């Protein structure tokens, strides 16, 4: 068991900067997901942590021990790969036993440990099988077994369930999270799937273009994103962005454009006044934070037109067109709308985020 620290970690491939000044402090027993689109540097970061890539600069500590220049075998970590990387020439038993065999543990101890791991993962009946005879889900479990059998100080997982079908993936999310909690092993989990990250992680590290954007609990990431990228990457359907101008009038602050003018609640203004130079802003509003009305209720109304509605059973998503853009709204399936119908949208300003349009950073 150990905490993990990455300090000013950089990785360049030729002229390409894959990871830039990554600072990440992962607590003991914690599960942190590295989340981001492909090419954001999350896998490279994990591979540096594993010792499979040498950092261009920076240091990595695992349990206060500087492992930056150590080879993978000396780091006391276990890794689960995207393609499972099971040794095809060995049986399931031999695959799980492999790290123990390398350590030259006595035979009966190896047998005991492998059987324990197999029991936890419910693959006891597969131990004599060859790797080629396994389904994707079984391979995934064997790969997990090979990782947990050695009781390492940290698990590194690189998109371990991305090749499973949707149903099995949803099942494995819960399984892996429970396993991690039961074993209490510090885990770094790489994924591009926000649902995986939000549902499994204690904290999520969102990365983009090699730079860590935000590290926080799933709640913080969702409700209080530091910038437009994080706000836009998390959430399905994605957050809606509406452009406006910041206007100060008679001691009050407004966000305005041709269609609407919203007064910013007093408690939010204090934050805003710290950035008086910002004029052009972007409101970020989650699809669940809107409500739809068929007439303008008060000042807080955005005029829009129904583009299409997608009933999903428990909820429905209504796409509304507003200034050549589509605003997605999640509502109760009881609300009936017609294509082309004029409606008014209101939203909860407390839950909306205001971003600087130029820098993309959150300003309130």
């Amino acid at each position, binding site marked *: 068991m150990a905490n993990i620290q990455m300090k000013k970690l950089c990785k360049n*491939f030729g002229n390409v900067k894959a990871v830039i000044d990554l600072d990440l402090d992962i607590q003991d027993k914690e599960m942190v997901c590295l989340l981001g689109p492909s090419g954001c540097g999350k896998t490279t970061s994990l591979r540096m942590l*594993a*010792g*499979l890539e040498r950092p261009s600069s920076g240091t990595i500590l695992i349990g206060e021990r500087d492992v930056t220049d150590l*080879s*993978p*075998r000396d*780091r006391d*970590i*276990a*890794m689960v*790969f*995207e*393609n499972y*990387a*099971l*040794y*095809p*020439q060995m049986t399931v038993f031999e695959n799980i036993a*492999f*790290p123990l065999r*390398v*350590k030259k543990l006595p035979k009966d101890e190896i047998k005991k440990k492998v059987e324990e791991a197999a029991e936890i993962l419910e693959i006891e009946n597969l131990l004599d099988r060859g790797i080629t005879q396994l389904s994707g889900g079984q391979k995934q479990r064997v790969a997990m077994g*090979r990782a947990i059998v*050695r009781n390492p100080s940290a698990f*590194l997982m690189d998109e371990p369930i991305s090749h499973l079908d949707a149903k099995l993936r949803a099942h494995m999310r819960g399984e892996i999270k429970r396993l991690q909690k039961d074993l209490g092993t510090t885990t770094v989990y790489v994924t591009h799937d926000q649902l995986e990250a939000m549902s499994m992680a204690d904290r999520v590290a969102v990365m983009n273009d090699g730079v860590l954007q935000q590290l926080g609990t799933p709640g913080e990431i969702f409700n209080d994103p530091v910038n437009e990228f994080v706000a836009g990457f998390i959430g399905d359907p994605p957050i809606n962005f509406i452009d406006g101008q910041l206007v100060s009038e008679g001691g009050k602050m407004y966000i305005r454009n041709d269609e609407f003018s919203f007064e910013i609640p007093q408690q939010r203004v204090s934050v805003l006044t710290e950035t008086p130079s910002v004029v052009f802003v972007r409101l970020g509003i989650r699809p669940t934070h809107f409500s739809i009305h068929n007439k303008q209720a008060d000042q807080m109304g955005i005029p829009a037109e129904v583009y299409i509605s997608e009933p999903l059973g428990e909820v429905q998503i209504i796409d509304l067109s507003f200034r050549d853009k589509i605003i997605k709204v999640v509502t109760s399936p009881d609300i009936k709308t017609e294509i082309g119908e004029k409606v008014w949208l209101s939203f909860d300003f407390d839950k909306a985020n205001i971003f600087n349009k130029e820098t993309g950073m959150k300003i309130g």
Partner: protein
Amino acid sequence: MVKEHGTFYWVIFYLVIIAAVIFFLYPVVYLFMTSFKSRLDIYVMPPKFFFVPTLQAWVDAFTKKPLFHYFFNSAVVSFGTTIISLVFGTLAAYALARFRIKGSKDISFFILSIRMFPPIAAAIPIFLWMKQLELIDTRFGLICAYTVFNLPFVVWMMREFIIAIPQELEEAAMVDGLTRMQAFRRILLPLLRPSLVAVAIFCVIFSWSEFLFSFLLTQTEAKTMPVSISEFITWREVTWEQVSAAGTALIIPVLVFSFFVQKYLVRGLSFGAVKE
């Protein structure tokens, strides 16, 4: 869906197969038969397919010349070349396949281009070097010369075979506690075994039947079978039955060898044609 074929299709199918087999096997069978014919039977037209077999040609061939010695040379040179090429070629291929080396594609192609080089053009320079190094008429000299032409082939083929195996296997092994070399030996090498055999076959066959360099670089001591066979053809006479006996002796080991490894041979020949 597999389409059902009629009788006519199969008749044509087998006729074509039989024709192809006769076309390719006839020279070998003819060589084999000639080696058991008496000198008189050889020149009969049309050729005799039924005759009284004799071992005279074999006895003459192996007593007139030290063929056993040449045979031994061929074996040493072929296997020496193959082993050296495989060891160094596979290691080079591993580096080219697995490490980020600047211009590794260009290096690979450059290595392959050596193989495209016409051997005759390199023959004289190689002869002069060998002379300087006093390697003329030594088996080691011949092994060096053959390795020059086998190594590029091994590097190129093995590089492709290694690329086809996911790198994560070795990485997993390294995380599991092996060094890079151990991961290479314990994880990658067992998976490469069929590929190594396939490539080895080509190396053995090339070295076994090579003529030009053996002719140039050997005199008596290190001479190999193909060159010695050509020496049955003299200005005075051509002893075809002895040429055939020695020729048969030359091809039998390759035939036996190929028979045992034919599974791998197909793999080597069809590599890249189908995705595994």
